[in-house]
């Protein structure tokens, strides 16, 4: 899958409280969550973001709470992918489980500026900065996670496991 979009750039330690503040966690509705995405770090974000745009951040993106509402809100806001120098571990799991494409690529994250066009090739594991004419190799996912992604996330994987063991829940 190839994703192309305009960069919205953030610094390090972007936490889940600014991605989706807790005052909105009294719902699980994706569209409602998406409407408040990044509100406490950038009040204009949801107005500026175009379908397919890409969030680029420095280290430890998604630190803090385990709320899956964070990747859900980012997806629902129209963001196609997050490229970061590193991700906090629960956010990383949640992104894979909910089908939000994420890419670990410190060099691409450092070089990209707000407004740049990025082209991310998930299968090839590359990040191209179209504006600057540069190309970067992303960190590959371990084979097990590739399998999860290929199966469409964790729950289809679990359903298949249960079926195999004849103990479908």
């Amino acid at each position, binding site marked *: 899958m190839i994703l192309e979009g305009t960069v919205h750039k953030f610094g390090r*330690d972007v*936490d889940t*409280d*600014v991605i989706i*503040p*807790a*005052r909105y*966690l*009294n*719902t*699980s509705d994706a569209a409602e969550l998406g409407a408040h995405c990044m509100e*406490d*770090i950038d009040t204009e974000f949801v107005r500026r973001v175009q379908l397919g745009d890409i969030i680029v951040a420095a*280290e*430890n993106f998604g*630190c*803090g*709470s*385990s*709320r*899956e*509402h964070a990747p*859900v809100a980012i997806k629902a806001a129209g963001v196609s992918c997050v490229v970061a120098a*590193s991700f*906090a*571990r*629960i956010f990383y*799991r*949640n992104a894979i*489980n*909910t089908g939000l494409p994420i890419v670990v690529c410190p060099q691409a994250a450092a070089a990209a500026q707000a407004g740049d066009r990025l082209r991310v090739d998930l299968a090839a594991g590359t990040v191209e900065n179209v504006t600057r004419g540069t190309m970067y190799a992303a960190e590959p996912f*371990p084979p*097990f996670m590739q399998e999860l992604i290929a199966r469409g*996330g*964790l*729950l*289809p*994987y*679990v*359903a298949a*496991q*249960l079926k195999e063991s004849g103990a479908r*829940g």
Partner: protein
Amino acid sequence: MAQTITEKILARAAGLDEVQPGQIIEAPVDLALANDITAPMAIAEFEKAGFEHVFDPAKIALVPDHFTPNKDVKSAGQAKILREFARKHAVVNYFEVGRMGIEHVLLPEQGLVSPGDVIVGADSHTCTYGAVGAFSTGVGSTDFAAAMAWGKVWLRVPESFRFVYSGTLPKYITGKDLVLHTIGLIGVDGALYQAMEFAGEAIAALSMDGRFTMCNMAIEAGAKSGVVAPDATTAAYLAGRARRPGVVFASDADAAYARTLEIDVAELQPTVAKPHLPANTAPAAALADTAIDQVVIGSCTNGRLEDLRQAAEILRGRRVHPNVRLIILPGTQQVCLDAAADGTMQALIEAGGAFSTPTCGPCLGGHMGVLAARERCVSTTNRNFVGRMGDVTSEVYLASPYVAAASAIAGHIATPEMVLSKGRAR
């Protein structure tokens, strides 16, 4: 091969002789938990995937603690989803308001976590249970939904980061000061993906409540888990409480660590994390010119009996500063009862504190003490991110119950010594 406590727990669970950091395993879970924020999303996923049964109704815990007693109509709806799911699937460990508590205070208190367990929770502070020698980690709603159906979780075996605390803790220095100081040293991603193993003579001397506080905040350094090897203190805590005996492991002396950090605690000062990161630490004494509007004592970090007793030790016979609102949130109904029985509750109320029923409440800016624009709060909770407790311009200073209580009296950030030297009002 020599193994750490974390590797031994995971190897046993996965049915392997040994595991290596980086290896991906599938392990049965001894307990899977979620709350009124994360469970509704998980229940929707569980039902959408077509699962009909939970793997074991006795190994699931559902705790409506965040926005309860329900703060508004929407949160009442979320709590109702939990309640109905719990009834439908005969979930044994569903805790209703009135029998409820903050999940990470409640579940150990109820004896639901044991040494050697593998526990996953749809809440980042699930790492708390490492204090009893379990492997315990936070996951998201989909992972929780999978665990409910499958009874298993996939895990990447973490590297371990060992912290050895030497020396004797000075008076008024608690597990909270230790863990804030540690996060200040290594940063909010200083232990990213790793297991933080707390050891050394200062940990051996630390109470269970202090150990829960430390493991609770492992996530604030980016860690997957925190752990303290069980000892006599653990055994005394678990006796007559734990519903399963568990399996006690300890790290081998020559186990491999990604990193080891030795910290001398003898000179440690009361420590505060300034806005807006838990790693932004400073001595409380250096912040005495910081005037405050509110103090919160409670949460899964510091809502246990020892925490309330420490606060009462400072507040007894003194008054909360006229400009300050003091809010106390006990961790569980049992903590309430114990605090009432030994006079702790009375001392806190007489000092001018508002004593709440158990809830997460203001810790995540939910209810029961949300901050207005530019207000400043000293809080015994675990996160001081932008907007965490209310308005985006409000500020949270993380501290121990001693420092929180002293600050409530002084009207600014203060150490116990600063207010104790002034004597009692009555």
